[in-house]
């Protein structure tokens, strides 16, 4: 026996899933597609049963890939399997379309009426007993977020039955109309504060104002949490606990030699400098764990809150006004925001866009103009005393690149750019355990992807220096790097390592003591010219060889043009 959780998007399916399964959950890609689903175990009648969270769908006549996957999963059901249809009780009519399609599948089924608590203040009254009689399956009122009704739902799963409800499929909406008018009463409702806030956040003027406040608050929160963690957790741990260990090892290795250089790096004034020593055990561990991880954690925490409260779709609606001019639509805000955390999930999530053209533009723009949190946190560290004087030009330049390049790509890339069509869910309080689990999974994912590459990067830096390859590359690239971009010759090392990890690359610029102009140019060029190797691999898979080649050419070309322009302009302003 298997349980399949089926329902429209935004009906709280994953909260129900989290409630039922607890800790041991796996996320998997459905074979042959790029659509993710989750599976876990639940105890029904003393037996451990597999439960699958089927991707949300409005209908079994699929209009997108996620819906195709949902249909394929239903096609693969055996007769013992049970359908649990999660329904939005505040949107009964729309939800019943899928319910009636599921009934036609003739499988044991239970309907859960989620958001039952919200029906009261939205003025909806549903006669559950009557609904059960009409559609011929058990219906359980549910408040997934508090857990009310979960136990009853599980009990009903054990005794789920096949509905004997007969209707003409061509007359489905007519049937739904009949059901709804006989079981549902709509009471007069006052416009609540929540309604007003929901409307205000999608209106152009008030919406832009709210978005400004939310985004500003988001970045302040990320900075506050990130800095706080570094000051009170990461730095003390590294300085007090790790430094003595490394110093002891340094002494044991004799304080010099090849192995010492590899593991510990060079000592600065006889001491270990986590930003400048560049050994595997010093800089190699400090960059991902001490400098970057706190910001990545803060970012994913804040982003997940925006996601789970329902603000993200509203941001997408607002962003659409700009984005549909870049050949994208508002939902492309998702790859862009995720890319701010780490470009790899950003590139992966370009899949949510419907057309090839949109996927290409979204992935390319994200890889070029959206720096990841690892890079941002290192740039903030590098800017140091210059503060906003260095940071504002960097991020404004990247934003301009994003807008101008997007416009150019929209004009030149062939293909369709479908419009936005989006269900905007109401504002809701997040389900905190589910949110914590999501942040946890994203952190594990970051550590697994990032730490190995940082170590490889630091290792390579040491080899490249040891065998004087950086010096040779510096000579070869000098005309471009010093002439066109106005950077010191040693910055070539950073640009080479930027292929592996952007944070390590920015870290390599720290000992060069760059001027304000050089710092701005280097930060922008490093962000643009090439994605890190992990992102590159994902882009190769998502765009194909030809698409990747095209994206790479665009990256190198635009990085050179923007870097040269910035260098020329800044030379006039700051010297």
């Amino acid at each position: 026996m298997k349980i399949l959780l089926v329902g429209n998007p935004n009906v709280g399916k994953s909260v129900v899933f989290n409630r039922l399964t607890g800790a041991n959950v796996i996320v998997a890609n459905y074979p042959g597609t790029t659509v993710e689903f989750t599976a876990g175990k639940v105890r029904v009648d003393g037996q451990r049963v597999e439960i699958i969270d089927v991707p949300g769908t409005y209908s079994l006549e699929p209009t997108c890939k996620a819906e195709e996957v949902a249909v394929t999963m239903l096609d693969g059901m055996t007769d013992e399997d049970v359908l649990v249809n999660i329904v939005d009780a505040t949107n009964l009519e729309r939800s019943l379309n899928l319910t009636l399609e599921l009934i036609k599948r003739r499988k044991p089924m239970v309907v859960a009426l989620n958001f039952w608590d919200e029906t009261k203040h939205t003025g909806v009254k549903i006669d559950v007993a009557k609904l059960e009689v009409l559609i011929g399956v058990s219906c359980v009122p549910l408040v997934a977020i508090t857990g009310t009704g979960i136990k009853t739902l599980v009990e009903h799963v054990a005794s789920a039955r096949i509905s004997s409800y007969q209707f003409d499929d061509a007359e489905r909406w007519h049937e739904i109309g009949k059901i709804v008018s006989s079981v549902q009463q709509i009471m007069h409702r006052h416009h609540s504060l929540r309604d007003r806030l929901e409307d205000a956040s999608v209106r152009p003027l008030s919406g832009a104002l709210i978005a400004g406040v939310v985004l500003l608050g988001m970045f302040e929160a990320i900075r506050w949490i990130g800095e706080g963690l570094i000051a009170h957790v990461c730095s003390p741990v590294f300085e007090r606990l790790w430094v003595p260990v490394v110093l002891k090892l340094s002494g044991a290795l004799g304080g010099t030699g090849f192995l010492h250089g590899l593991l510990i790096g060079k000592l600065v004034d006889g001491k270990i400098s986590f930003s400048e020593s560049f050994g595997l055990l010093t800089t190699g561990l400090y960059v991902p764990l001490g400098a970057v991880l706190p910001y990545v954690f803060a970012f994913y925490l804040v982003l997940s809150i925006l996601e789970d409260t329902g603000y993200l779709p509203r941001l997408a609606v607002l962003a659409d006004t700009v984005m549909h001019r870049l050949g994208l639509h508002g939902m492309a805000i998702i790859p862009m925001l995720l890319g701010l955390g780490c470009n790899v999930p950003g590139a992966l999530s370009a899949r949510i866009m419907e057309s090839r053209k949109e996927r290409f533009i979204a992935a390319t723009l994200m890889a070029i103009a959206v720096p990841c949190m690892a890079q941002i946190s290192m740039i903030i560290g590098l800017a140091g005393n210059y503060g906003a004087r260095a940071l504002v030009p960097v991020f404004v330049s990247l934003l301009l690149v994003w807008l101008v390049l997007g416009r150019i790509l929209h004009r030149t890339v062939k293909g369709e750019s479908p419009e936005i069509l989006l269900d905007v869910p109401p504002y809701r309080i997040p389900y905190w355990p589910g949110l914590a689990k999501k942040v946890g999974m994203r952190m594990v994912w970051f550590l697994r992807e990032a730490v190995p590459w940082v170590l490889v990067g630091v290792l390579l830096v040491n080899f490249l220096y040891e065998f004087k390859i950086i010096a040779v590359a510096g000579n070869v690239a000098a005309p471009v790097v010093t002439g066109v971009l106005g950077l010191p010759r040693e910055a070539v090392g950073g640009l080479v390592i930027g292929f592996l990890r952007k944070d390590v690359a920015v870290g390599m610029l720290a000992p060069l003591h760059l001027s304000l102009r050089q710092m701005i140019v280097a930060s922008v060029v490093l962000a643009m010219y090439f994605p890190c190797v992990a992102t590159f691999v994902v882009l190769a898979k998502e765009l194909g060889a030809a698409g990747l080649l095209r994206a790479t050419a665009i990256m190198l070309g635009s990085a050179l043009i923007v870097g040269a322009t910035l260098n020329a302009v800044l030379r006039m302003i700051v010297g």
Partner: protein
Amino acid sequence: MKSQIRLAAMSSEQEGVVVQVLGGLGVTRRLDVLGIRPGARLKVTSRSPLRGPVTVRIGNAQIALGFGMASKVLVDVEGEGSG
């Protein structure tokens, strides 16, 4: 007085009943499952400048749709309309 106008031409806060979706099968079906189908009563909650998206409320749901799609939805509105 009743008149029929395109959803894209409706003003913010204006209410109406969908008469017809003048699009291909794909668009019609995608709008249909979200509740935008003949007979549905809707209210425009926001319009964006520069042919940006339109958001509507249908029952307790809020839907955002692009300007082009909104131009394909024919709506019966009460009172003054621009035809």
